[in-house]
């Protein structure tokens, strides 16, 4: 038998065997340690993103799993997103009425509610709600699969786990977020009208007419499609956190929590950049 040493090569799926968040805590929380951990995390995320992108664009494609994830991300999130949108619509209507009354501009209320919803509140609330529900779900599911060797079993079966698990979930998030945002906007506008009508009766037709007066597709489409970027962030971070998990049940819990926290944080930060981008490019 030849005893021939070989140069160690990178793992086939390097990020799947990643270091996990436990290393960060072992550094004792020093500033340098935190910075190094932060850079390591970003480096790992970058490598993971590249692996997913390569897997996503090469066949065979996992259409069945993609459809399943579209249902999981889209249909299953719809009630929650619609409810959140409705609540925001009602709150906006009440708060805007209070402000507009001071300035004698209550006739502007429908426009204020509609514009606030479609340009910012609807997309942001959708992003944060989905980040909580879907981010935690994906993070926990993939983390649980990681610690029980299910991802290893997929890999051992000659199936690319990046294509089957990560690419499908990320793509589902990208496709579903804009549609969920439309649902949030619609329920927000509807509840905004209800809240308004309870105080000062106005027909729904009048509310919509006044609300969308002067609005163009440029006011609606860019903010709605920016949520596709939110979906990318949520899917990517949740899959990354899940597939690099170590540490049993504790690791699964940590992955779920980190998925939500980090996805929410990056959605908010991305919103700042995207709003500026939209204002510069479209308006």
């Amino acid at each position, binding site marked *: 038998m030849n005893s021939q*040493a070989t140069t*160690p090569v990178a793992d086939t799926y390097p990020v799947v065997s990643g270091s996990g968040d436990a290393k960060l805590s072992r550094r004792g929380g020093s500033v340098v340690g935190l910075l190094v951990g932060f850079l390591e995390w970003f480096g790992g995320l970058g490598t993971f993103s590249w692996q997913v992108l390569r897997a996503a664009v090469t066949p065979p494609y996992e259409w069945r799993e993609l459809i399943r994830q579209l249902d999981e991300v889209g249909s299953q999130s719809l009630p929650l997103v619609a409810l959140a949108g409705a609540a925001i619509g009602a709150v906006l209507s009440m708060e805007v009425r209070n402000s507009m009354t001071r300035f004698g501009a209550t006739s502007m209320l429908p426009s204020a509610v509609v514009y606030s919803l479609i340009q910012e509140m609807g997309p942001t609330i959708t992003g944060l709600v989905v980040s909580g529900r879907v981010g935690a779900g994906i993070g926990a599911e993939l983390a649980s699969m990681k610690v029980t060797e299910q991802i290893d*079993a997929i890999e051992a079966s000659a199936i690319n786990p990046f294509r089957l698990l990560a690419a499908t979930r990320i793509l589902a998030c990208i496709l579903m977020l804009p549609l969920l945002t439309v649902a949030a906007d619609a329920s927000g506008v509807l509840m905004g009208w209800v809240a308004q009508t309870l105080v000062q009766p106005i027909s729904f037709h009048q509310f919509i007419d006044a609300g969308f007066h002067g609005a163009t597709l440029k006011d609606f489409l860019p903010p709605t499609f920016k949520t596709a970027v939110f979906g990318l962030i949520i899917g990517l971070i949740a899959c990354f956190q899940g597939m690099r998990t170590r540490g049993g049940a504790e690791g699964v819990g940590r992955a779920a929590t980190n998925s939500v926290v980090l996805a929410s944080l990056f959605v908010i930060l991305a919103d700042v950049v995207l709003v500026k981008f939209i204002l510069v490019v479209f308006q």
Partner: protein
Amino acid sequence: MATAFEIPMSLEDPEEHSNPSVVAAGNLCKAFDGHVVLHGISLTVGRGETLAVLGRSGTGKSVLLRLIIGLETPDSGTVSIHGQIIAALSLDGLNAIRVKMGFLFQHAALYDSLTVGENIAFPFDHHRQDMPRSEKRDRVRALLAEVGMEGDLDKMPSDISGGMQKRVGLARALALEPEILLLDEPTAGLDPISSAEIDNLILKLQRERQMASIVVTHDLHSAKTIANRLAILDRGRVVVEGTFEDLRQSRIPFAREFLNQS
């Protein structure tokens, strides 16, 4: 290099064996976070041959299987399958080899969002998409019958015991009629009758399909039944390898102690 344990020559020198090796591990070393798990493991398995790997818990037996299928990369040494060094292969090349291998994980690693039947159909869904649905269904039922689980097609993994999950995992590993079978504790958690059934199944597969198999086990009785050769690992090294008779006659203290305690 001299080691604390002398490795006796097998009665059959592998290099002169007429059965060319299907799986060959050469001087494998692997460490995790500075802790060395494998120290230069070398072994070969030929077609139609079963090698049982025994040893105390934590001696790197499962890591050895993971290195062979490419789930881990060795720090040094080589794994070759049909003469191809897997570290030199692209991902597509490695997957082309993996399709010919069946792997049973220590805790079965069933996909918990799929039923028992869907778990077994999983390899067909991805690698035999041309297979008609009726044929797939028949194959799944036949595989479940082979492991004695024919009535559990629609159950979820969480609804069945650990031993039953192991049997379903074995059925899934056999789905694509592999040439190479890697089994991590196939009879762990099974009652003696079920263990004997699994042993007989492995023997039957070895006879009929001439598979090359590596079985990691603590069950010496099972190892004696199914294996042509046995290898005992201790602290990441092969301390003795050969037939059961070789092991029984070995003067190496650890081997004698291991056999006496089993």
